[in-house]
């Protein structure tokens, strides 16, 4: 049995890079240091592996690539979507393909933290890398997120329990506050749980901003939280040495969305008049920060980018996948390392089964079920190496621990690009 150290897990944005993976041949036998989600990722790597097929008929990878290239080179308004559960070199290639065919390219951010990105684009963000939180944060606020279930090792690696340079006693040197609409399993780690009414995040956050300015409010409570509770929370934030606010999809998916996040970012910004306060999104499924990062450096924009005019245009709501599909505009789709069909609202997802859809994925999914072409690939982070970005934009190298019979996402995309390029040239 071979032991591979410092392996990076691509399941969530915590992007732990300290896993020890024990392998025998092409089988993973054991995984150490990983959380329950990470462990499941590695231990099940052989379950439900996708099969190459066109219109449900099993065929060769090569034939699938050819069929994909044909679909994409014929399309007028194709959509390339997904790219969270893969590594950056594949993401690079996906953008190159999008540029080549004049596609819209969008990522799983679209239905996850895209409101956060839009909020940051509007007001900025006072943030930091996770090590700053580990070494300095004496007050942690988790708002509308549930790290215990979505980012299990966040608490132990970066935020709640680790001993840091300026917080040498770890948890004892920190206070933890959880704000949510329900008491999630994350509440166990918190010193205080503040329950707010669903859909009232904006009201609560903006009321806190007003209180911070010294304004008095003419109400007794906001979002079910007494003003006195908000004032004491503010007092804690103002008097801590280094406060760190984390938010999740409790803000981004609830009524208000990007505006909820904006209110939180502005609160954090305003708090910097008193002390150091940072705010960070709890990002990541997989390497979703990676695709945002690479897209940004290649096109200037993090998601919802359209290249049909031969240059990048960005407009969430126009070039974001749910909108493109709900408007029935896309005439072909390439879904890479994501399960669009399962994650999109049904009425949007159904358009995928109306148009030629190509799925590139290591695993079977609801999308592969309806896809015209299915191209299985080696799973990034298990059978394909590369690069990933942690939720705080820190790049982490990704290892390969076992072989796969299939090519990597990068390789498949490279081959599609070559084929598309020659088809387009022949046509001109």
């Amino acid at each position, binding site marked *: 049995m071979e032991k591979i150290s410092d392996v990076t897990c691509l399941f969530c944005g915590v992007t732990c890079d300290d896993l020890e993976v024990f392998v025998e041949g092409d089988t993973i036998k054991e995984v150490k240091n990983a959380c329950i989600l990470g462990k499941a990722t590695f231990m099940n790597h052989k379950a439900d592996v996708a099969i190459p097929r066109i219109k449900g008929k099993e065929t060769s990878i090569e034939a699938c690539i050819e069929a994909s290239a044909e679909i994409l080179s014929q399309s007028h308004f194709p959509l390339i979507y997904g790219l969270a559960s893969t590594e*950056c070199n594949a993401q690079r290639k996906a953008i190159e393909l999008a*540029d080549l065919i004049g596609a819209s390219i969008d990522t799983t951010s679209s239905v996850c933290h895209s409101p956060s990105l839009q909020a940051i684009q509007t007001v900025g963000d006072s943030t930091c890398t996770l090590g700053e939180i580990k070494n300095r944060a004496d007050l942690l606020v988790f708002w509308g997120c549930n790290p215990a279930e979505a980012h299990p090792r966040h608490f132990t690696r970066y935020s709640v329990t680790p001993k840091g340079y300026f917080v040498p006693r770890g948890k004892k040197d920190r206070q933890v506050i959880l704000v949510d609409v329900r008491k999630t399993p994350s509440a166990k780690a918190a010193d205080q749980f503040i329950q707010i009414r669903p859909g009232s995040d904006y009201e609560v956050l903006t009321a806190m901003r007003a209180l911070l300015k010294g304004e008095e409010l003419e109400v007794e409570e906001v979002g079910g939280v007494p003003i006195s509770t908000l004032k004491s929370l503010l007092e804690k934030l103002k008097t801590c040495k280094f406060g760190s606010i984390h938010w999740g999809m409790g803000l981004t998916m609830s009524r208000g969305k990007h505006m909820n996040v904006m209110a939180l970012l502005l609160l954090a910004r305003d708090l910097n008049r008193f002390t150091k306060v940072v705010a960070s999104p709890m990002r990541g499924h997989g390497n979703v920060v990676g695709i945002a990062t690479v897209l940004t450096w*290649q096109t200037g924009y993090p998601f919802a980018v359209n290249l049909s005019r031969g*240059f990048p245009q960005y407009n969430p709501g126009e070039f974001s996948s749910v909108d493109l599909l709900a408007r029935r505009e896309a005439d072909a789709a390439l879904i890479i390392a994501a399960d669009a069909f399962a994650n999109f609202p049904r009425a949007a997802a159904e358009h995928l089964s109306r148009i030629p859809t190509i799925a590139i994925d290591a695993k079977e999914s609801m999308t592969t079920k309806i896809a015209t072409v299915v191209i299985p690939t080696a799973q990034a982070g298990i059978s394909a190496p590369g690069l990933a970005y942690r939720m705080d934009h*820190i790049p982490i*190298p990704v290892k390969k621990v076992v072989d796969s019979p299939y090519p990597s996402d990068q390789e498949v995309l490279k081959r599609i690009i070559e084929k598309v390029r020659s088809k387009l040239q022949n046509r001109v």
Partner: protein
Amino acid sequence: MLKIINGEVYDPLNGINGGIKEICIRDGKIVDEVPNTAKIIDASNLVVMPGGIDIHSHISGLKVNAGRGLRPEDHRRMVIPKTRITRSGTGYTIPSTFATGYLYTKLGYTTVMEAAVPPIGARHTHEELNDTPMIDKGCYIVLGNNEFILRYLQKGEYEKARDYTAWLLNATKGYAIKIVNPGGVENWKYGQDVSGLDDKVNHFDVTPRQILTALAQINQDLHLPHGVHIHCNNLGVPGNYRTTLETLHALEGKRVHLTHVQFHSYGGENWSGFASKAPEIAEYLNQHPHATIDVGQIIFGDTTTMTADGPWQYRLHKISEKKWYNSDVELESGCGIVPYVYKEKNFVNAIQWAIGLELFLLIKNPWQVFMSTDHPNGGPFIFYPYIIRLLMDKNFRDEMTKRVHKRVLKDTVLPHITREYSLYEIAIITRAGPAKALGLTHKGHLGVGADADIVLYPKLENKEEMFERPVYVLKEGEVILQEGQILKDWTGKTIFVELPENKAFQNEIRDDFEKYYTVEFSNYPTGLETFARYESVKVSI
């Protein structure tokens, strides 16, 4: 094989000032001669110069990309459509990676140094640089607030600080040591700054002065090709010229490069008393050849300011009320981004504009002062030709001076300066000088053995037009641009220093590293497999 004939050649490192000279190229290098079968470029009526070298620009890295992410409204102002050869892109003040490569090439620049990379972001920087085509590139590693360095200096362990620096440069594939607001950025992590060279850094019993002198000494002891590259304390603050002069004094006898000195040449005790102290800074440099500077000229209009100097960016955000992005980088550095508009009629901005030009014009030795806008802090690099025109054309300069806020006419010496740069001097401040200061011996000149990075400009009266319309750009002897069209999607090299490895020392830092960092020690260094093409400059200690 290629031969460029009949060109008017400006090659200051070889003392050639406008003479007609043949340039022969083989295997990407300049050679003595090539056979008659070589392809010929007739450079009649063209000016031949080595490719431009930007000694200080922010084109790649965590902060640059965060800036891109922050400003979709900026990208909409300039789109770069794909061609059959090139990729598409966007960006006015913070171009996307491909666009950056193309835009520099269109100005005749062939080598660009990314000026501030926090070590943990080095891998990211290199990945981005891999997607920055056409140009050769390298990056400077920020060390002035590195907590390992601070701890070593606190304990008086100079050698460890030196060995750590050597290890870090190897691990990050950096080219030079960068210092940004030494001590101030560390203090910013709890919301504070330092106000001068002798303030204490929080939690670390050291001063900015100690950090500066130690890193300058380390730079010397490691025999790094470039001097220590410094962004002084108190950037942007009225009266900061004193800090700048103190920094220069403190480092006398050492090889130093002060960057974007325009932002550090301010008089006055507050904003209303804001004044130019460029003459004082220039005077010092005229007496002290140990230091080089780049200017950080400002350009009127929109830009995006971005720097590791977090505390300054917070101040600028409060002044400008524009959106503010800040990201502190664990154990190493910080980063702040604020959009900004320089306005002709704003007297502070107008005087900043004048200060930059005064520095160019009052520093007598062009080998000491280099072109930069501190892209994009003072403005986008695409305005270099405009700056060249301001330097070469007194009338044009006077016209501009009359247009901006009247305090420039009244309160600065700029209107009285008659100096006009020659093409030879322009060649120094845009290529030969930076190459020399960077220790890039095979760049910035057209002598035998040099990289055949060559640009041919049309001879035009309007110098702005001349320098924004190269007729040919050659990279390693290949024509990559002709008449404004990019002919080849060239992959440039990443240049970094390679220091002798010190295995024993790695164990020394591993413990602390594992305690305080959030990435594994083995995953931290950037390996050679990262690079599309690279060139290491071996340094022996």
